[in-house]
């Protein structure tokens, strides 16, 4: 058996298209999408993939109609509260949950639910689930810069020299290593402001299946292709590491 990815990230695209395809009511696509999340998480943790990240709600998504935003917020709150229950998937697999993003942008009840969930799962240590909400990568980077600069000023450093390590430790996603694979469903091949920094060397997989329809075979295909490309990365990664190290 080849190397296993340590971290898989998902851009769960296609819920609304799925709902349209099946003539479901508005919002139903997202509910079915949540079932796909649960099954993907099971595959990951069963296989031994320790870190999973999902792009649940982008800061850009606030641009959608107030009704859709509201229904998404309600769905999120419901599902977050479900996470804390004993029989939930995160407790079965010992998963520690992080909510990653600019949480101040969330409505109060959702934010509080998120904080409760993070507290409740803080002792879990077998695996990690990072749920990106109110997140964009550019916002994450700006926040990291602000915090780095502020830290340098507070310590009265005469030369506030920002280094790679400063930025990385202030990233919301510092709770997990860089992803090995990013899977975006429904055939769209773009990152939509997700993990831009962390995806520098990551394998990008873009199956045409809609998110609610994603299944085991797509998951396995991603793993196989990751393994196929893995040796390439080791070679190239060394070359590129030199570029990185020299600059910092």
């Amino acid at each position, binding site marked *: 058996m080849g190397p296993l990815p340590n971290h898989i990230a998902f851009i769960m695209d296609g819920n609304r298209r799925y709902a349209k395809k099946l003539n479901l009511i508005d919002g139903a696509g997202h509910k079915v999408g949540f079932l796909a999340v649960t099954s993907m998480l099971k595959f990951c943790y069963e296989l031994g993939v320790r870190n999973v990240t999902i792009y649940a709600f*982008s800061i850009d998504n606030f641009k959608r109609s107030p009704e859709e935003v509201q229904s998404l917020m309600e769905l999120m709150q419901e599902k977050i509260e479900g996470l804390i229950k004993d029989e939930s998937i995160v407790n079965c697999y010992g998963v520690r949950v992080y909510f990653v993003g600019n949480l101040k942008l969330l409505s109060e009840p959702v934010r509080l639910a998120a904080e409760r969930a993070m507290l409740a799962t803080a002792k879990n240590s077998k695996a990690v689930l990072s749920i990106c909400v109110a997140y964009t990568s550019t916002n994450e980077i700006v926040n990291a810069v602000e915090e780095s*600069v502020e830290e340098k000023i507070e310590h009265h450093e005469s030369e506030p020299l*920002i280094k790679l390590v400063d930025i990385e430790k202030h990233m919301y996603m510092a709770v997990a290593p860089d992803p090995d694979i990013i899977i975006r469903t429904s055939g769209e*091949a773009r990152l*939509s402001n997700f993990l831009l920094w962390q*995806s520098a060397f990551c394998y990008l997989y873009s*199956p045409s299946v809609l998110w609610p329809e994603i299944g085991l075979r797509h998951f396995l295909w991603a793993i196989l292709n990751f393994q196929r490309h893995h040796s390439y990365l080791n070679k190239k990664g060394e070359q*590129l590491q030199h570029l990185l190290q020299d600059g910092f």
Partner: protein
Amino acid sequence: MLSLGVNSPIPNTLVPLILNPSRPKTRLFSSVSLRKLRVKASSAEVAFKEEEKYSNEGVSPTRGLSEELPPGLSREAMPKHVAVIMDGNARWARQRGLPSSEGHQAGVQSLRELIELCCKWGIKVLTVFAFSYDNWVRPKVEVDFLMSLEGIRISVIGDSSKLPTNLQKLIRDAEEATKENSNFQLIVAVSYSGKYDIIQACKGIAQKVKEGVVELDDIDETLVEQELETNCTDHPYPDLLIRTSGELRVSNFLLWQLAYTEFFFVQPLWPDFGKDEFVDALTAFQKRQRRYGGRDS
């Protein structure tokens, strides 16, 4: 037998068709299964004669040609900024038992053709990523060629401090000489690291805060954008990224700037990437719906 249309005492090398080994196709991969026969001159002399043709006839790809677009493409929906990761030169050479310099030379040919097409079809900025500056086998010749194109602005991003000093000077002079040109901009990424670009932008911002030019509260995405090395252009964000030779990753090329870029990964190696492949990429790009996180229209 195809020829370059140039009298040459050196025999041309016919490159055989190489069909893709079968790989499951997803929407990401190019649907081209036939590639035109291309004649690659294996000698520098023939390539030099081709440059003479450009300078003697005063032909400029950028001069006011509104060449008809291939069927299916619309001028209005053209990407303003195209980025390319030119991967596969070395593999191309190895497959033919040629030294890697031949691969890089063939790669330069692909790049020249792409620049020509971008100019003709109204693309304003082309950013190219060469994995190493080995790709520039005859830098002076290439820079001279670029400078001969009317209205083209040349910019270089990345860490050129490791390059030989005469090449650094060549680059600086070319940037200076072309900086007022506005028909088309070619940005060449040499020893470029997307992560380092963001770090140096942050360093710049930290310095400005220290000097009191900027308040901590003023730090936002616009400020970061202004500090990135792509601040040499009005269109820093590529609409379309093409990567050749089948690798499905960004490899630390532009990172911040690719936030909403459409990716198009293709199987052909860079020297085999030509007009047909570029039309495929543009056609797929124009079909895609760009929502920027909002709702479908």
